[in-house]
């Protein structure tokens, strides 16, 4: 039995500039993500991938159509949502443990308890010994680990990720992908993972959705039958993986052609 976690129905999103010019980011876009599903979205730049995530958080409501989370129409920020940003969104003036403890503290947990929870999460993401370091003292991969711990500590049922690993080097990215799969497999949140990297999408997701170029709408959708638990580094050499990768690329190719 799989319940619907996220539903976008016939969503259109326009951006109107102060001069009155309309840009259509998404047109008649529909997407359903079931509970516990890992859904990756790939598409050419400017096709509205990030806009989709913004609408699910409630930070940027759709111009028309409906967005609902667990059957409820989205009006504000749903407390069950976690978001991992592309850029560094850890707080530079807080050390690692205080950064991770922020979520529970914002939500009213006692500071001492929140710090204890944070200490556990810092260890879980492999940053034991760095609790008192400030973000500028960490590498890009370590900052990303802080961001993951900061998001996971709230135990989100829906996890939105906006090209979270695109700024990392290839090796670090592979490590972080495994880290993410490890963290995700424990609680099985519903994930919407936006990326421009087809291989990353296939390696991580149960389903890959290809968007057409702006105004974006769903062009095709692929189920990924690769077994779990997966190890990202080895999964990408299986014949199924290569075949999927080729099919998705041929879909995407038409969209990115200039």
């Amino acid at each position, binding site marked *: 039995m799989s319940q619907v976690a996220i539903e976008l129905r016939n969503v259109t999103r326009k951006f109107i500039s102060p001069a009155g010019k309309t840009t259509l980011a998404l047109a008649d876009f529909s997407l359903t993500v079931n509970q516990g599903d890992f859904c990756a979205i790939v598409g050419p730049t400017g096709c509205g991938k990030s806009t989709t995530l913004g609408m699910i958080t409630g*930070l940027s409501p759709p111009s028309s159509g409906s967005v609902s989370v667990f059957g409820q129409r989205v009006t504000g920020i749903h407390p069950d949502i976690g*978001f991992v940003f592309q850029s560094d969104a850890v*707080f530079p*003036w807080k050390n690692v443990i205080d950064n991770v403890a*922020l979520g529970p503290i914002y939500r009213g947990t006692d500071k001492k308890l929140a710090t204890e929870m944070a200490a556990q999460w810092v260890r879980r993401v492999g940053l034991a010994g760095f609790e008192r370091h400030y973000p500028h003292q960490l590498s890009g991969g370590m900052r990303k680990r802080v961001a993951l711990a900061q998001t996971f500590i*709230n135990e989100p049922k829906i996890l939105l990720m906006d090209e979270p690993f695109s700024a990392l080097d290839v090796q670090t990215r592979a490590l972080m992908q495994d880290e993410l799969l490890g963290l995700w497999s424990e609680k099985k949140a519903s994930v919407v993972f936006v990326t421009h990297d087809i291989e990353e999408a296939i390696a991580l997701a149960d389903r890959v959705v290809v968007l057409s170029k702006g105004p974006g709408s769903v062009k095709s959708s692929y189920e990924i039958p690769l077994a779990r638990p997966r190890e990202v580094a080895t999964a990408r050499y299986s014949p199924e993986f290569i075949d999927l990768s080729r099919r998705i690329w041929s879909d995407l190719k038409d969209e990115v052609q200039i």
Partner: protein
Amino acid sequence: MTTNSINSPAALPVDREDERKAVARAVNHHRLVIFLRIAVAAVTLAGWEAAVRYGLIDPFFFSQPSAIYAQLMVWLTEGTSQGPLWSELLVTMEETVLGFIIGSGLGILFGIGLGRNRLAADVFSIYIKIANAIPRVVLGSIFIIMFGLGMGSKIALAVVMVFFVVFGNAFQGVREADRNLIANAYILGASKRQVTFTVVFPSALTWILASLHVSFGFALVGAVVGEFLGARHGIGLLISTAQGTFNAAGVFAAMIVLAVVALAAEYALTLLENALLKWRPVQFVERGM
């Protein structure tokens, strides 16, 4: 991944000799800078004194270092015409510090308040521009009419001098706060109030602290100019009295007293800044271009 890997990232043996040399180079550079600074001061003062003694410049207008020193000594040992130097200085300091605290407090409050409220910012920005365009020193006359010759009028002038600088920086600091960080805080569960205090204020703090350096000087200007315009005590009055008796050495001596105060305040503010912004990256010893 071990703790010390952040300090010595490579497995290579660390070259202690190189480290020692880099530190020694930095120390030597520092010593050279201090020596040259003292040399510049010595040459300037000696040149000034010599120029007066050889009749190149007129001490009536330009005074001379020895006369300024003598004047300072007289003030320190015998007191000024208005009373002991330290009590005059205390008056000016009290006006400056109170004006500085009130002005920067209001500046931060309004800067962040308007920065967080788009409509209020749009409505009031025009009035703030107008108020900022007025040369604020002229307000001193009004304040003397309003608050009299006592401290109140000087504090009020110092407040308006400080307010606009701090306000402008706090406002800009709020506007420059990283949108991703704000969005992240909201999604992590923060209320608007929590975002203001835990995200917007810390990111504006860099801007605010930078403005405090400038604005302490402005507070001092406000207090001293206020005393020029009419007062019973203070360093500004001392200058104005010296001016009235064509005592150039007195003007310079009062200037030195004010400079010492301003430098001490600057030092204290730097300490405060370093304590509050300890999360910023430190500079390496290694020197670039």
